[in-house]
């Protein structure tokens, strides 16, 4: 994939060299292929969203978008390459709130440290974290689970797909807010491993997302007992919305929010095309249908609203980090 694209560009090298010297002309943007960087590996929940977005965006912009997976560092490598890219509108990328806000707080040397250091284009979706137990578990619902965890500190194990991913951070938030001591077990091979651990009885519960869980719930191997958001969650209407319970403010709820971002300093006309095009994509019927199938919550937001949302999360993460350092788990 990258091979062929590189060769194409090399063949047109002469023409492009001249073209690159000129500033990007907005009226005929895009003049060449746009690179969309996915900081997560191919396959997995992010891939489906990224490819759906690119497919629709290609039509809106009347151009070609190449999805490139640049993985590593919990998303920081791919996001870093977008933030550092030339702001000509030909490199944009996908980023989640944990990579954008949490990672700079714990990693040094990243290309950005605050939301102002990059240009958000649109909010794609949020995915609330779900809590699931095995179908034959004695825990019947969220209230049961909470009682269980409070009665047995450090014994109830909850699997998550990776350290300091949104699901992990969410469960740590719950530990902090409810003053419980769940043992959160990170499985680095992705949600598949935590699913197997739950089915095999090695953990008592797991925190994950709809796409990884739905098939198992349908097969009656698992039950989703809680969803960490306010209000009913359509794909699993029986799951208790924890955001509605007393003692859990909305600060506790950290859905994984995914955005499209670009480097700071893109020319206004190019930026406008990207922002408006993206908005068109996320409000289109096709995207809505896709979101429904995948259990995504659509929440279209423009650049300024995204900045505000990221800023709100900064405070939450700072408190969480203080708590985690104090309780070195």
């Amino acid at each position: 994939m990258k091979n062929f694209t590189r060769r194409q560009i090399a063949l047109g090298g002469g023409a492009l060299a001249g073209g690159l010297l000129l500033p990007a002309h907005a009226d005929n943007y895009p003049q060449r292929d746009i690179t969309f960087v996915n900081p997560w590996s191919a396959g997995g929940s992010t891939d489906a969203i990224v490819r759906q977005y690119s497919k629709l965006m290609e039509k809106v912009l009347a151009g070609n978008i190449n999805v490139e997976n640049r993985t590593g560092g919990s998303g920081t490598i791919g996001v870093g390459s977008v933030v550092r890219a030339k702001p000509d509108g030909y490199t944009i990328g996908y980023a989640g709130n944990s990579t954008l806000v949490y990672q700079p707080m714990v990693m040094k040397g990243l290309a950005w440290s605050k939301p102002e250091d990059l240009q958000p284009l649109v909010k794609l979706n949020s995915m609330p974290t779900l809590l699931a137990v095995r179908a034959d578990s004695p825990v019947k619902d969220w209230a049961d689970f909470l009682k269980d965890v409070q009665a047995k500190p450090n014994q109830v194990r909850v699997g998550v797909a990776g350290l300091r991913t949104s699901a992990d951070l969410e469960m740590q938030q719950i530990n902090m807010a409810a003053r419980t001591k769940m043992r959160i077990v990170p499985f680095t091979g992705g949600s598949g491993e935590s699913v197997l651990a739950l089915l095999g009885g090695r953990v008592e519960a797991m925190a994950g997302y709809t796409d990884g869980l739905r098939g198992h719930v349908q097969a009656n191997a698992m039950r989703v007992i809680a969803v960490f958001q306010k209000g009913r969650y359509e794909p699993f209407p029986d799951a208790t919305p924890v955001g509605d319970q007393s003692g859990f403010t909305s600060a506790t709820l950290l859905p994984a929010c995914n955005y499209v971002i670009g480097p700071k300093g893109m020319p206004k006309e190019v930026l406008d095309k990207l922002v408006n095009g993206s908005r068109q994509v996320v409000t289109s019927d096709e995207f809505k249908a896709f979101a429904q199938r995948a259990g995504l919550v659509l929440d279209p937001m423009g650049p300024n609203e995204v900045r505000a949302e990221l800023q709100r999360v900064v405070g939450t993460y700072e408190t969480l980090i203080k708590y985690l350092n104090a309780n070195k788990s």
Partner: protein
Amino acid sequence: MSSFDGLMHGFAIACTMQNLIAAFLGALAGTLVGVLPGLGPLGGIALILPITYSFDPTTGLIAMAGIFYGAMYGGSTTAILINVPGEVASAITCLDGYQLTRKGRAGAALTIVAAGSFVGGTASVLGIMLLSPAVSRAALMFGPPEYFAMLLGGLLIFSRISGGTLAAGLFPMTIGLLLATVGQEAVTGEQRFIFGINELSPGFTLVAVVIGLFAVAEIMHLVATKEDHIAPVSIKLRDLMPTKEEWRRSFWPMGRGTLVGFVMGALPGPPSSMSSFASYRLEQAVSKYRHELGTGAIEGVAGPETANNAAATATLIPLLAMGIPFGAITALMMSSLMIHGITPGPLLMVNYPDLFWGLIASMYIGNVMLVILNVPLVGVWVSLLRVPQYIFLPMIVLLTIIGAYSVNNSMLDVWLLPLIGCVGFILNKLDFRMAPMVIGLVLGPLVEKHLRESLILSGGDISTFWSSSVAVVTWIVVLLVLFLGYLVRPKEVAADD
């Protein structure tokens, strides 16, 4: 519906023009992608993913599966002919495959690979059909402590994989383990030994290391010794085909390879690329001709190549039976299903019988296509060897550079080639073996990960490593293999037979 009905239904679906073409193109693309070092089945599948959106999901899956097992076959072609492994899994094929080429038996080796791939792939599909539910249940019995036992055992067992003294294997393996610690640690996210170079965060790119170790080191060796590359090669059909003797000797290795490959592919823990290594090690332990391994024994090619096709097909089991993808390739397939609105899960077989049985039937057909595609090509590949060395070697160097760069678009990987090539050259001169280094690089991080996960799960309690019966049995099997191998050995054919 019963398995037989399902299969017949599946053939009806797989034999539509659209699906036949998809299978053919997939196998072809996969073979090409496999032959090119660096670009692997993952890259190939990612490339065609957008194209599959316009077709129905069954067609898309058929094409992707075709690329996957096609690449397993293609990777061995360059491994055998020029000691350049196309994939990690083909690295072990370099050992005997390249020696066979130097003996003038390249055509035979390639044909045996084609046959073995067919046998492994087909048997594995049979396994999927009949054993999926059993395999899923078995997969649930293995967790981090069990995988730790298995993979640590694997490290120890594979250390003797290339023969030689214990040190010849353990020392490079340790180097491999050390190299594997560079980069971001999986469980805690700590960056280790990257010295500020962020590109090193994912660790050393495995394919680049493998190419450097086998291909570049070998090229350096050829230049240093000014050897003639390969004896003048004839392309008479008789010489291209394996002799009766070679077929006979390949029979049992293919059978053993199928079993090993199927098990390693179906179980989520061990990486499927290790299936070929496991098969080679098994041949080393039980084959009548094991003393010839390393100098061009056909067993060293028949077993591993059968195993890796069996494994490639078997990795689909967790996806098809449980909706859990293990590895990036099956994850991509799952992604494509989800875009079509299909939720993979344990009910996939029940809710989407067309998809499931269509895919299975198509894999049978695809394996046949692979053989038909590749056996005639053997002559073409072999004639490449007649190119004079002063043109051939620079071409190979170019190929390896493009291959290494194509994995991550990173110059770092290209710089790795001469670096690791030098390491490999020195190791060779000192009579150390290189395959254990690859094993250390692959298994090291996994052993560490499972160790930590086990301890986190048990809250620091070490007894978790022997508390489940599956773990105990695994340890016993590992110890048996390690020690009984010395005590009870099947009769070896005398060296001057």
